[in-house]
């Protein structure tokens, strides 16, 4: 009996946490921007920096350099230098850019980091095999918030 009760409590908690998260399919864009936080929990900029500069996670560094992470080797140059991104864009615009930059820059080569459908032959990560039916987004909702929080710190001098 006691065990069952605990189970309910745990389930209840996860359910409410999941409900607070905005699912990839229910994002509201306004001219490319996403005003509402995806989780309601404010992002952690230090976490965001790690996500952006780690190959197996955000890997933004493969295309973008930034003076703030100049210590990370081999920054790419496919995308622009991110210095001053937090001054050029507001938080909602940056969230929109990370969730799906195609809503801001039509036809951009930058991938959408919080999107799970509408792909041509989606794969299961880098295996070359077909994606599972419940393909996860490239970043979790909280990881998107962390990245946005970090981008907001990249102000013009």
């Amino acid at each position, binding site marked *: 009996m006691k065990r069952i009760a605990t189970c309910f409590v745990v389930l209840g908690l996860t359910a409410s946490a999941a409900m607070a998260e905005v699912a990839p399919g229910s994002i509201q864009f306004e001219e490319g921007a996403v005003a509402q936080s995806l989780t309601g929990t404010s992002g952690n900029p230090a976490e965001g920096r790690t996500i952006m500069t780690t*190959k197996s996670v955000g*890997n933004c*560094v*493969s*295309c973008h350099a930034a003076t703030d992470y100049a210590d990370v*080797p*081999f*920054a*790419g*140059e*496919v995308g622009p230098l991110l210095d001053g991104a937090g001054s050029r864009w507001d938080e909602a615009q940056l969230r929109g850019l990370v969730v799906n930059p195609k809503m801001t820059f039509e036809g951009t*080569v930058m*991938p*959408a980091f919080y999107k799970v459908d509408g*792909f*041509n*032959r*989606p*794969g*299961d*990560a*880098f*295996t*070359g*095999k*077909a*994606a599972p039916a419940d*393909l996860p987004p*490239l970043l979790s909702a909280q990881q998107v918030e962390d990245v946005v929080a970090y981008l907001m710190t990249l102000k013009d001098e």
Partner: protein
Amino acid sequence: MNIKNTLTTKLCTAAVLTAFAVAAPAFADEDAELVINGEIEIVTKTTAPAHLEGHLTEIMSGWRFRSDDTQAMEMDDFDNPGMLGAEEGLAQFDTVMGSEGKACADCHDGVESLASVRPTYPKWNDAKEAVYTIQMQINDCLTERMGAEAEKYDSKKMLNFEAVLASVARGTPMNVAIDGPAQSTWEQGKEMYYTRFGQLDLSCANCHEQNYGNMIRADHLSQGQTNGFPVYRIKDNKLTGAHSRFKGCIRDTRAETFAPGSPEFVALELYVASRGNGLSVEGPSVRN
């Protein structure tokens, strides 16, 4: 470095070099010229073929985008590990295979007699009414004329054959036909080239047409040309075929990729080869 300095046309001006130095200093010399063994002149940069109008004005071999050391390895056959594959390919050519007791050399008067193959394939095969790659043709000879088993696509043996066929054609310009009966396959390949794949939603053109010359992390993006195939990849320590390279590039977009030898890759190979019409055959080449 030394070999290179002597063989590079000294005329490439300091001004041009400085322009590139900003983008990728220690990584590559996009203005170097390739001469193999001090005698085979390789065109690694030339005017784009007419069908690329509006897309590219100039085409460049992947060799131009590699580091000085990697570039140097291709300048001398003794330094090019891909030439070992070509040697093995030559030995295979003289070896009896299959139930008919025949070697390739019994019907083909030396590999040199097949020097026109590498620059002109993939090519329409009248009897089979399909665009044929070199490997498809070799498999036909193996199975229909020699009584041998078909080789797996991009197997070591196939790549050795490709390597020797490329080596005897080095310096001749790529010249695949894109009209006539091959045209619809070519169109199919072209459409694929501009199609975005995978969760990263990227097409070949996004990387190799829009961003060649840029660094994507530690990789210096080339135009993704096939004139250098088969390619000896230092990282893998072996020869790689064009289809295996395509497979890897599509996999890296987080996509469900295609198989070497698939009709999709045959079409794509024809189209990509045609983007390099005018560049010299330089295989077996060396890449990282």
